[in-house]
């Protein structure tokens, strides 16, 4: 009998043996698939968000300068621009005006931002898709239309009616969902920000290599300022969705170790039936190596089935069903949550990580206890 034919016979026997304990093995495959599904979903989601962020934020401002007072971000005096402009290599410095607005009607938080193009159109706004659906919570299926008027409550209690001039495209929802673009005059009507103050400053420099030097000079001239470089922003999104850290890892580790306990218990606590089976096989002439092969195929059959199913389901979940199971978790207390479709990014590294975290450990814990049973005398195994 050839080596291949021998393997096939052992595999045939293994599958029949698994079939005899159908209920137990199906339950195991379901739990196993769920663990892989969970791990793969987190990995796909975080990696795609990171990749998306790194692509979209490539053209974010080269440097943003904030002012910190008592450890918190504060409004920056516009006259700071003059000194910063004098620094060699600085091409332009523009003040940005933006802030958060709580809409009591829908309970949502918006980001209000001044757009220079609207400065000649006071009383008009351009809104993100999330804002246009703002009434969805109180009045289902009621979205905001063009030329609708939205009331904004100002700091002194009066109301400013602002007409919707247009919408930011729904495909840009990942960056603009909660955005309301307003004119400077309207912004200063809503928030009590003096004319000589801005939220922060945005810099353009002539040579990207000089960013660090310019940042150092800014903190020298204005020690209360904090420059944030584009590189910092890109690094932020690399770090905040690192699945190997933070609470995500804690949650995954919990699920993973629960699975390890289950697999270990299943694999180490060979049932009397399984032990008797090993004893009989040895008594009828099976070698220890054949039994180990049988157990290897058993572990491989269970884990590979769960592996393929788990990864496929995770892919469907994240990229076709828009992470529907994670939505309550991601949404938190947000009333306004962007609905975006992520571009799938899958690579060999992710698949290899999942394989080595799940298939290899399970296959090993299946073989080790069987090796112990297979090396002892068949007579004593059968008497157990």
């Amino acid at each position, binding site marked *: 009998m050839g080596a291949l034919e021998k393997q096939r016979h052992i595999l045939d026997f293994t599958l029949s043996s698994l079939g005899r304990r159908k209920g137990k093995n199906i339950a195991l495959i379901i739990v196993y698939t769920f663990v892989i599904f969970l791990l793969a979903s987190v990995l796909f989601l975080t990696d795609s968000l990171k990749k998306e962020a790194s692509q979209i934020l490539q053209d974010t401002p080269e440097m943003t300068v904030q002012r910190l007072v008592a450890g918190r971000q504060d409004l920056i005096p516009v006259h700071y621009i003059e000194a910063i402009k004098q620094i060699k290599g600085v091409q332009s410095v523009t003040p940005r005006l933006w802030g958060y607005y709580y809409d009591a009607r829908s309970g949502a938080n918006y980001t209000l931002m001044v757009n220079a193009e609207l400065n000649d159109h006071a009383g008009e706004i351009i809104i993100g898709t999330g804002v246009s659906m703002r009434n969805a919570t109180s009045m289902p299926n009621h979205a905001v239309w063009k030329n609708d008027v939205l009331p904004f409550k100002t700091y002194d209690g009066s109301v400013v009616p602002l007409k919707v001039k247009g919408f930011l495209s729904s495909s840009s929802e990942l960056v603009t969902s909660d955005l309301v673009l307003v004119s400077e005059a309207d912004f200063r009507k809503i928030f009590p920000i003096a004319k000589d103050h801005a939220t922060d400053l945005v810099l353009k420099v002539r040579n990207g290599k000089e960013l660090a030097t310019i940042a150092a000079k800014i903190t020298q001239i204005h020690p209360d300022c904090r420059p944030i470089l584009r590189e910092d922003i890109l690094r932020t999104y690399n770090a905040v969705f690192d699945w190997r850290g933070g609470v995500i890892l804690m949650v995954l580790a919990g699920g993973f170790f629960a699975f390890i306990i289950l697999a270990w218990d299943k694999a180490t606590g060979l049932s009397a039936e399984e032990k008797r089976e090993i004893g009989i096989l040895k008594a009828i002439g099976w070698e220890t190596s054949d039994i180990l092969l049988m157990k290897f195929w058993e572990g491989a059959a269970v884990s590979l089935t769960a592996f*393929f199913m788990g990864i496929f389901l995770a892919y469907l979940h994240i990229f076709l069903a828009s992470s529907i199971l994670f939505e309550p978790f991601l949404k938190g207390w947000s009333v306004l949550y962007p609905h975006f479709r992520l571009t799938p990014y899958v690579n060999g590294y992710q698949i290899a990580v999942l394989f080595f975290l799940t298939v290899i450990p399970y296959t090993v814990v299946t073989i080790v206890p069987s090796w112990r049973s297979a090396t002892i005398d068949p007579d004593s195994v059968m008497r157990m």
Partner: protein
Amino acid sequence: MILQRKSDVFFSSLAVGVLLMCLIFLDAAVSQRLDREVVRERREIVRVLELTDLCLFTEARYTRHPSMADLHTPFQDHPLALEHFPSGSVMAIPPHLKLQDSGE
């Protein structure tokens, strides 16, 4: 006759699994190609509007704009306030805040 033995069924399902995996990679590659225009559009909006962050969590300002946050925003209510926004627990701290939180 095909699939006479259990091992045949096993190897066939293994082949289906590998095929599904290939389909995943293929679908990802095709989607990336098709989404290029969307990515370009998002990038352009970020450039024109001078945006700094993704709109993922709108519940707290330091998770809406994590790159613009300072170290102390999670303790906004009082110095001993514990983090209470769910998204604050999901996100790790931006690296530039760990390195330098000057000015306080």
